[in-house]
């Protein structure tokens, strides 16, 4: 960890020493640990300390990005020279206008000092307690428990100066019994909120000792738990909720603004400042986060912007810039779906014959403009008959348009859950999706696992 003063000082020095017309310097540090277990035994426990500097230089309309995790002065000087050389070699990007100017960033507390109490020994003790509870019920478990401290600092030559320190922890648990398994997970910025017993109880609820039956593919009523709903929202965010997808004409929102696209019960938005989620006060350009509503009571409304896409539309950034060079677009990372009026139990009781889905596995896009995706169910798929969860079923493949599914939403749970994919590739920056369970009257399952 480098701390606010030292981090900002380092970035300011980089910006001051740059001869480019505009310079942006980002520092992302990480001190993290992850412990994995399988068959109720720890088999992997790793820790990492890293710090990365990302420089974005603008010379006229020529832009370069250079990244290094070697923060020695000689390396930083070389990194700056490399960035200047690359910018000179660049072609001008006529669509580029400017790096963002400074805006007031709301003060948010995103760090819990108690994260430091999660020593290797303490984490092992917590896992041991969880595994003991699982064993008491005669099951075994797999999962991972990770925590980290991340610092993000952004300085640019136009006066942006932002720093935030984050703590995070996530725990995901799969309880296993023969061919059946159940899943539960937890994500937070505050370690005291982790309740191992509740996590175990939630996962065990999905574990049956009965042999799973095979149901025929087809269209069913479904109850989809928040874990799976969160995944649907992440796909919508990636495919269509952001300005680049709209500007390139590849978003399902193209030509639909103001139109009813999904059921009026459905409101989906992004809000980095909402304390119900894992708060993030500013983006990777140092721009404060704004709430952006994509679907408001079923109507297509707004999209997210970073400074580049905002300039193209003559708008202001909504604070959704990602780590440069970001060619994917300002994809929202703090998604929410508004809760409804129902309890999960009421929703199940309303199903005549349907499928209960806990989570999806290995989902992927089939047709982007219609938001058609495919994937498998996993870790808790059940047949519901006459309002009761009857039997576990073999995992099913679905191929369905998320938009069509959201048109057919007939109930939404009051309670929402913060969900996170719970793994980290490359650079750690944990956020969450806050979502309810939903009932969909007509969801297409296209295949079934033979196991």
């Amino acid at each position, binding site marked *: 960890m480098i701390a606010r003063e030292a981090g900002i000082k380092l970035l300011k020095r980089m910006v001051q020493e740059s001869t480019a017309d505009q310079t942006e310097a980002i520092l992302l540090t990480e001190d993290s640990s992850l412990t994995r277990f399988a068959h109720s035994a720890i088999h992997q426990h790793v*820790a990492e300390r890293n710090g990365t500097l990302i420089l974005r230089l603008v010379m006229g309309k020529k832009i370069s990005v250079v990244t290094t995790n070697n923060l020695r002065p000689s390396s930083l000087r070389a990194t700056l020279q490399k960035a200047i050389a690359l910018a000179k070699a*660049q072609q001008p990007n006529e669509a580029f206008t400017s790096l963002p100017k400074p805006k007031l960033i709301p003060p948010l507390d995103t760090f819990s000092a108690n994260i430091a109490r999660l020593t*290797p020994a303490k984490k092992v003790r917590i896992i041991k307690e969880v595994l003991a509870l699982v064993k008491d019920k005669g099951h075994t478990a797999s999962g991972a428990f990770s925590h980290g401290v991340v610092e993000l600092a952004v300085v640019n030559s136009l006066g942006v100066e932002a720093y935030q320190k984050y703590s995070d922890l996530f725990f995901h648990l799969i309880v296993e019994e023969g061919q059946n398994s159940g899943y539960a997970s937890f994500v937070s910025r505050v370690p005291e909120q982790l309740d191992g017993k509740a996590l175990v109880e939630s996962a065990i609820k999905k574990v049956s000792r009965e042999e799973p039956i095979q149901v025929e593919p087809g269209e069913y009523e479904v109850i989809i738990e928040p874990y799976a709903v969160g995944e649907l929202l992440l796909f919508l965010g990636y495919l269509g909720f952001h300005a680049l997808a709209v500007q390139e004409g590849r978003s399902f929102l193209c030509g639909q603004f103001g139109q009813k696209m999904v059921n009026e019960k459905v409101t989906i938005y992004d809000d980095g400042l909402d304390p119900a989620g894992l708060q993030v006060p500013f983006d990777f350009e140092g721009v404060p986060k704004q709430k952006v509503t994509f679907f408001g009571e079923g109507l297509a409304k707004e999209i997210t912007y970073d400074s580049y896409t905002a300039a193209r539309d003559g708008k202001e950034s909504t604070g959704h810039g990602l780590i440069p060079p970001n060619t994917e677009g300002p994809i929202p990372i703090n998604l929410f779906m508004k809760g409804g009026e129902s309890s999960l139990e009421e929703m199940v009781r309303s199903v005549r014959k349907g499928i209960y889905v806990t989570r999806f596995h290995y989902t992927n896009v089939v047709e982007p403009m219609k938001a058609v995706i495919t994937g498998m169910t996993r870790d808790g798929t059940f047949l519901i008959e006459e309002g009761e969860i009857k039997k576990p079923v073999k995992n099913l493949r679905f191929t369905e348009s998320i938009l069509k599914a959201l048109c057919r939403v007939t109930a939404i749970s009051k309670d929402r859950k913060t969900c996170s994919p719970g793994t980290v590739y490359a650079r750690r920056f944990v956020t969450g999706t806050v979502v309810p369970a939903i009932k969909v009257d007509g969801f297409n399952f296209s295949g079934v696992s033979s196991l």
Partner: protein
Amino acid sequence: MKHLIQNVLDLAKLKKADYADIRVVRRQMEEIEVKNGNVEALTSDEDFGFGIRVLFQGAWGFACSSKVNRQEVESVFGKALKIARGSSKVKGQDVSFPPTSPAVATYKTPISINPLSISPEDKLKLLLKADEIMRKNKKVKISEAFMGSYNTAKTFASTEGSYIEQEIIECGAGISATAIERGEVQVRSYPNSFRGNFSTKGYEWIEELKILAHAQRVAEEAEQLLWAKPCPSKITTLILDSSQLALQVHESIGHPIELDRILGTEASYAGTSFIKPQMVGNFRYGSEKVNITADAALPGGLGTFGYDDEGIRAQRVPIISQGILINVLTSRETAHILGKESNGTMRADGWNRIPLIRMTNINLEPGEWTLEQMIADTDDGLFLSTNRSWSIDDRRINFQFGTEIGWEIKNGKLGEMVKNPTYTGITPQFWNSCDAIAKRDHWQMWGTPNCGKGEPGQVAHVGHATAPARFRNVQVGIMKS
């Protein structure tokens, strides 16, 4: 550096670690992405650090840092030891880690032209030209060209006395054209989707790809797809081109044969495998036509290296012989469960990740057909090319793929183009339905630079050499519109 490494290994012995290794890794990367005539990304990335793995009291600990100096190395070793000690309290069985002969060696990817020595200006010129050709087609709304150049220098040393220095050089490039009209989005790519094709070769590989020669065709096919008829929904004969077959091998053979998945240690994230240890040596995975090898020594493969990250030499291993599963991908910790020695597949995604069992180059060995003979021998079916989407369940048994393009086969001839092709199947049923594989002159190496696995997530570079193959009675056309 050698002194620093030796010092920490001596410390590990002093602290009575059962085993320890250290990897110091420096990765340099340059990536260029051109879109619609603009250079959207011109980036250079340097990543440097070390990771220490300690086996103590029968349990593993791993810690790492980007600060490479003596004080930090000793501190990180202390942390790894502390982690191992903690983990030993909930370890199940002691880790069994049979000793191996120490290797002192160097390895460098054989190349003619270092891709990082070519100026960004020259690379941009090529990519912008390809982009310009594609944009001449007015239906193409998004034209993209990508090139990546990579150099990984790593030193591995262990308390057993291994000291291995390797330099892996890779590069790749690709183009894609996206045509959009009336709410329809169709994409065509060359040489492969998702950024192109990658190899452990020098810049000569980029030159071999001849991307300019394919830019116009790619744009035209994207446009034609806008008007193509939808893929029919039926059970039929399927011929896959070699690039799609590479991903088919990857998902439905490469991952299920990873012994860590088979043993359940990936259950919490990527999933497990329908394969059980007792199936090795007797399970009929595919038809007699199907022969699969894992070949980490094949020149040019993206999964080619000198030694794995446990110090085991790269090797060629038969995995499926005439349809029978005879081996799987193993590590030092797992191979003994099958009564075998590690076949050298442990690789880590950089200094800050532990090695996992990863695919090397998992290849479908060539058959005896030409593609033309295969089509001529098919009365009714589909020929599908270039992956567009993929999905498979957590035991790698039920898969569904989509490709960019397809053509009907009628009476032994390629017929009309079809859009949005998809197909689905059950892994062993599918491979048992394989009745023809094209011969060696159709055999092509495909580099997959985005193979995800593990927690924290790791991305591996792996390869698959394949030739087109034919499969009977496959369900196609799963799209729900």
